[in-house]
């Protein structure tokens, strides 16, 4: 290559002064800026259009349950609109759908770097961590999502995240943490019967039946026709040994949904428990005694049937173990268990019911789940024992 610096003919530009040439350079620069600006504007417009086209294809693929294709489409959309957070979020979601969790996580983390306080990104990361069974990470992201920023309806989104967090904790048997979260959720609930019933169900899962019953009652106040709420309230009351209330709620539940066998079963037990409970308030001495005698007879009958079915003789001294122990107590108690005697000596009723409990428990251990009437007796006698304790 020759150096033409010296050989090139000196043209018009060579005759101008340096300062004029600098000025001309600035003018040319301004023109070039203008042209580039126009080109870039057109370019961005076309890129956005292409990005949008591929994004729509991705959405369609995702709806059609073709996550791999959706991933490709969202990838392409991102090539044309790489700082579009929506595309990136959808790509991450498609990757999760396609079970490509590691890739999804990388995308979400890069989104998180850009928007560390984003509720949506944190929620997606929480779901991802939950899928990967990383409970600590999941909880961290869920909590950040709860307190994170949401573009639309922040209150509603936070509530949804709290629900999801509670469900996640329940799924992972973290009942203590779950209870704390459900209590926090309870305070934020809007007047929505369905949500109250759902929270009630969660309280049931963690064993907080009192709060569960409260939530079901609130739900029923808001909507007495809410499916499942009567049954929920009934079951909560049942667990709280308030068989009278349980019978009332469960009766409505069975009326609303006759196919609900669990409710029907519990209703039957509740009904029997109410019928056999000698400790119910406002009962006359005669009625209490009558119920105690009936309970004793029923329990003894159950014990005898069970022993017979297991081939165990209840005659004194013929067998060892729980049956003979209980039966020996029964033999001692039996002469005292009469309507007249118990009416005269009502202090004996608790002793009778203790023995009923022992008989039922012994029979249950040997012969499995008892019929409803015996279940009811078990519950009634246990409840009294628990109350005394």
């Amino acid at each position, binding site marked *: *290559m020759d*150096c*033409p*610096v010296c050989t090139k003919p000196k043209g*018009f*530009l*060579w*005759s*101008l*002064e*340096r*300062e*004029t*040439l*600098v*000025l001309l*350079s*600035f003018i040319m*620069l301004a023109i*070039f*800026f203008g042209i*580039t*600006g126009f*080109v*870039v504007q057109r*370019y961005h417009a076309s*890129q956005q259009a*292409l990005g949008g*086209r*591929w994004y729509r294809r991705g959405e369609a693929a995702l709806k059609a349950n073709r996550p791999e294709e959706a991933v*490709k489409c969202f*990838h*392409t959309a991102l*090539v*044309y609109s*790489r*700082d579009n957070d929506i595309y990136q979020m959808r790509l991450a979601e498609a990757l999760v759908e396609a079970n*490509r969790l*590691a*890739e999804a996580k*990388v*995308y979400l*983390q*890069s989104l998180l*770097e850009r928007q560390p306080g984003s509720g949506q990104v944190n929620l997606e990361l929480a779901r991802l961590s939950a899928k990967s069974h990383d409970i600590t990470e999941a909880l961290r992201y869920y909590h950040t999502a709860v307190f994170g920023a949401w573009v639309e309806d922040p209150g509603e989104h936070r509530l949804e995240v709290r629900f999801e967090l509670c469900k996640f904790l329940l799924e992972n048997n973290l009942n203590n943490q779950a209870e704390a979260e459900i209590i926090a959720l309870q305070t934020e609930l809007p007047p929505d019967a369905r949500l109250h019933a759902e929270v009630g169900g969660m309280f049931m899962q963690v064993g907080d039946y009192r709060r569960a019953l409260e939530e079901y009652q609130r739900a029923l106040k808001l909507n007495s026709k809410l499916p499942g709420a009567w049954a929920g309230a009934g079951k909560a009351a049942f667990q709280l040994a308030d068989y009278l209330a349980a019978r009332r709620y469960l009766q409505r539940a069975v009326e609303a949904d006759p196919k609900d066998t669990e409710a029907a079963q519990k209703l039957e037990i509740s009904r029997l428990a109410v019928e056999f409970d000698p400790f119910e308030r406002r009962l006359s001495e005669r009625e209490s005694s009558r119920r105690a005698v009936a309970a004793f007879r029923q329990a003894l009958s159950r014990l005898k049937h069970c022993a017979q079915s297991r081939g165990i003789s209840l005659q004194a001294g013929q067998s060892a173990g729980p049956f003979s122990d209980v039966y020996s107590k029964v033999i001692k108690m039996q002469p005292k268990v009469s309507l007249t005697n118990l009416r005269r000596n009502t202090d004996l009723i608790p002793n009778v019911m203790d023995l009923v409990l022992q008989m039922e428990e012994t029979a249950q251990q040997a012969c499995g789940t008892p019929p409803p009437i015996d279940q009811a007796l078990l519950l009634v006698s246990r409840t009294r024992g628990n109350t005394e304790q």
Partner: protein
Amino acid sequence: MKTRGATDSETAPSDRIPSLEKYWDNIRERLKKVRVPRLFPHEEGLFLLLAVIIGLFSGLAVVCFQIAIDWTRIKLLGSSLAPGPAHSILAPTIAGLGVAALVIFVFPRVRGSGVNQTKAAVYIYDGYIPFSTVIGKFVTCALAIGSGQSLGPEDPSLQMGAGIASALGRRLRLSREKVRLIAPVGAAAGLAAAFNAPISAVLFVIEEVIGRWSSGVLGAIVLSAVSSVTVFRLFLGEEPLFRVPRFHLSHPSELLSYAVLGVIGGFASLAFVKLVSWLRMRSKAMPKWTDYVQPAAAGLLIGIIGVWMPQVMGAGYGIIDQALHDQFTWKLLVLLAVFKILATSLSFSSGTPGGMFAPTLFIGAMVGGAVGGLEHIFFPSLGGSASSFALVGMGVLFAGFLRVPMTSVFMVLELSGNYSIIVPVMISNTIAYLISLRYQPVPLFDLLSRQDGTDLPSMEEQRERTLLSVEDAMRPPAEIVLRAEESVAEALERVTASTLEFFLVSHRNGNWTLAKKEDLLRLAEEQKGELPLSRALPGPLLPCLHPDQPLDAALRYIGDWPLLPVIHRADHRNLQGVISLSDILAAYGAATGEKGEERLGDESSREQPAFHSEESKP
């Protein structure tokens, strides 16, 4: 009815309406008469302002260039990331024919590496790069890269920047020295915009084009790089070239994996250089008429590869981005690295204009990702992310293939924006660089220039050159060192038996002077034997040297002195040695002899026999 205007134009068109030419002449005359105040009495000021202007122009040019590449890709290959087989095969083949025709008939100077052409402008052509090269690079590279040839836009951007700078420098009638320096300024601007990374661009130009930290040009390079990146970001956004995920070192033992990456990356670089060099030699040896079809043939082969692996087509930034996000299995990453090496070697050796930076980053990311993937399989407890390996891998290939160790480290830092990655990057890059240096003594850019029959200065050789210091040439302290407080008679008594002519005289204050035996004899004859030397021979003072000073400094100071003292830096009366002109020349002679022998050894193993070193130049 005729209007008045119509009547006038019909009657006397040429008299009343001046032609365009007349307008133009008028503007020219007026421009010539424009008298603006002298704003730039000194060239330095103009040079710095020009650096900013160059940066702005280069930034705009690179923005347009990137858009042109993208636009071409969409038109030729479609908007999908995986074009259909017909597009994959036909687009690069037909575009290859077009590129060959343009290169042969219209822009013959666009062939080859932009880095080397910029170096040639600096070292051979007094900074001259024809503006047609800028246009040629723009058009041919946009067509080639957009059609799927496995090349990158950084090298052409660098050359476009250099070309713009050269044109502006010449138009503004800068001195020859400044015009020579202006091309690297533009090169930095072009590269900075292409990478969207000013620090890496500045370092690359200093490391590979200029080869020294010169304050005269550094400011201009920084200004141009910053202004071009600013323009680029203004138009195409602040986003970096890649969306780099977070990096964290899970455990210090993970550094071992990065060392393994350095080894694998070093050998991958080696394979890449050897293949490029071999294929380029073969393609150059082919008959002349094949120049018309070589880019098309390369395009066809790449298109065939692209049917199965569309990822290897084009610059591949999107694919690097995906690798950085753990989206490929290690097996696929290995395949991508292998086929990218093949595709890039084909494209580059066929004479298709385009750069090697993006493919280098691509291969590095794939190799790194693969090593990271394997680490996950064999050492899952380490738990490092494959994307971190992909990121470090880019630097590794940069260090091993392009042989720019400093740039490679800072590039990864700049791209990741994460300082904590520096330790793995330094480990891997150093290993890769040393492997490449060991098994491929001539760096890629030097290899290419030598294949083209040009002898450009090798920056690596300059870096590796051993600098001679004073201690390499000095002799042990002279047998007799006189003290300034000694009398002439005493001094004469001590030196009488010596065969030497000159003796160093040490003064209490750390100064040194020289005493000639002849002068001592004369003073004795003049009955001045009782006088102390400080009074009898007061000066002149000798310039003093230190053992660690470069030998060049000794050469500057020695002047007419027969010998100079080499003294301790902390104790100026502590004589470490003496040095004379003959000692200096002997040291230079010995060093040149050794280097010459080394060179001869290199020559015998080199493909290009016509080579003479910098040192052997007159």
